[in-house]
């Protein structure tokens, strides 16, 4: 596939986001659900960029969302009275990315030298470790967290603060999902995509082919972390207007990211949105029938998917479509 046509598979994904967004606008009563779905899709898209493309699991992934949340919280609580207006939000977004990138560099410097199981072991404590550093050394107010709803109101006014956290934050989450999608396809269709695919299939052979595997893994890791940072800043900080370390470093968000990516199909472009929608909608209904026990249902589902359908939904669809006109739209 050559030229622009190699980017065709982004069309169905972007159309799906547009449809979800329009559906939400037309049904204000369902906006909360739509926002939740957008969050799951974006989470999957960002997580997939590393896990799906490299075949490495980062069990501490939520730490990047957590630190991104702090990035936004700090800029609003520190800069609210500087007369910068909405510029503070922009600074918050930048800060969340910077924080996430710095943390991913620190973690990646150790973990990405390690192979397979050792990588997983190195990452599994990152979220808890970071949480306890914040609490233990009383960084950023320690375990009391940061509550910045007042600063946000004073900065932009009550009305604007309200619409920021009930609407515009969600719009930004859509934005993160779209950025993640575009980055994913640019990577997949670029040299880095071939490098990551090669190292996912056979890391030693990839090295022999001249692939600097560590370098490409780090690029994917940092990109995925930066997206998580943005997601924390928008879906958590702006929406909730507070941050507590015990909440934003909880491992169950990593669990959700894993479920979404596996349901949809790891390493595919369309997978995260499919997985995100399946997960989000079923979780929504499970919350009605089995409140609080959604994970009890989903954890066995992960095992079933791993054992019986390792390609996920999109992987199976893709196989069905080989040789048809639709093939070039699915990735």
């Amino acid at each position, binding site marked *: 596939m050559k030229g622009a046509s190699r980017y065709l598979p982004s069309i169905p994904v972007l159309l799906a986001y547009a449809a979800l967004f329009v559906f939400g606008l037309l049904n204000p009563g369902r906006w909360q659900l739509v926002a939740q779905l957008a969050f799951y899709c974006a989470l999957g898209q960002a997580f997939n960029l590393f896990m799906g493309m490299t075949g490495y699991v980062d069990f501490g992934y939520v730490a990047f969302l957590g630190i991104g949340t702090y990035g936004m919280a700090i800029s609003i609580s520190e800069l609210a009275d500087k007369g910068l207006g909405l510029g503070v939000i922009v600074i918050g977004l930048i800060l969340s990315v910077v924080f996430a990138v710095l943390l991913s560099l620190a973690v990646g410097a150790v973990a990405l030298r390690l192979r397979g199981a050792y990588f997983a072991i190195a990452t599994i404590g990152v979220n808890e470790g970071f949480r306890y550093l914040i609490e233990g050394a009383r960084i950023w107010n320690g375990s009391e967290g940061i509550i910045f709803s007042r600063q946000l109101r004073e900065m932009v006014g009550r009305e604007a603060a309200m619409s920021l956290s009930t609407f515009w934050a969600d719009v930004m989450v859509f934005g993160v999902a779209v950025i993640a999608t575009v980055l994913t396809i640019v990577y997949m269709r670029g040299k880095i995509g071939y490098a990551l*695919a*090669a190292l996912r299939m056979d890391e030693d052979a990839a*090295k*022999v*082919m*001249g*692939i*600097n*595997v560590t370098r490409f893994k780090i690029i994917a890791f940092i990109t995925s972390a930066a997206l998580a940072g943005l997601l924390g800043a928008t879906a958590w900080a702006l929406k909730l207007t507070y941050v507590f370390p015990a909440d934003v470093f909880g491992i169950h968000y990593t669990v959700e990211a894993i479920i979404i990516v596996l349901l949809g199909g790891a390493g595919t472009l369309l997978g995260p949105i499919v997985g995100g929608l399946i997960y989000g909608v079923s979780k929504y209904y499970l919350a009605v029938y089995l409140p609080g026990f959604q994970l009890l249902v989903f954890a066995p589902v992960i095992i079933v998917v791993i054992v019986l359908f390792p390609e996920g939904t999109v992987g199976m669809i893709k196989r069905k479509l080989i040789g048809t006109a639709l093939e070039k739209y699915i990735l």
Partner: protein
Amino acid sequence: MSLLRVENVTKRFGGLVAVDNVTMEIAHGEMMAIVGPNGAGKTTLFNLINGVFFADEGKIWFEDVDVTHYPAYKRAHMGIGRTFQISRPFASATVQENIAIGAMFGAAGSETNVDQAMEMADHYIGLIGLSSHRDKLAGGLTPIEKKMMEIARALAMKPRLLLMDEAMAGMNPKDIDKMVDFIKRIRSEEGIAIVALVEHIMRAVAGLAERVLVMHQGAKLVDEPTKIALSDPRVIEVYLGVPPGEADA
């Protein structure tokens, strides 16, 4: 000036000395065969030359650069390509993509974009006669097709030195002759030095190599022009000393 110089290189696995104080040289464009019974240390020597393993002792020079501590990918960039004894295709990528990966990241990789790499891949697919399999997943090829694909993938890296590990194992005499011709052709067309490991296929050794290095229990036994090497009594002894059952393993 030699292309590759291996100086007193030793590699141990626990108590086992897999490569024992080996010294050898390869000139630009030379064609050389390394032979030796199973477990002689041939594959390990390859792994040391291209950086899959690091030598415990000794030095390795490539184009007069000391590459002893270079990682495998750097040596690939410098122009060392290789195929594997047990094929290692990127199984869920297509044949074209496999070969394109070689083009994208090998010695000419930094100047090659994805589209160019795909075109180069098509060229090499034609060269090895796999055009009809271009869009097949590499995992689905037959063992011999996989070997051919690996050769194409290594050639697409534009190497100056190509290490071929048992490229002809499992082939019948007709295919071996074809392979020998093919290797000779690419060597003269692309001007690369080739080192082929050939276990017991004397037919190939005689037809292919200008020089033969015989390894035995990790050490270099003989390093002579082909004619002399093949009539060396020590070589004959090493070969006849190996029970036939083991030789086929």
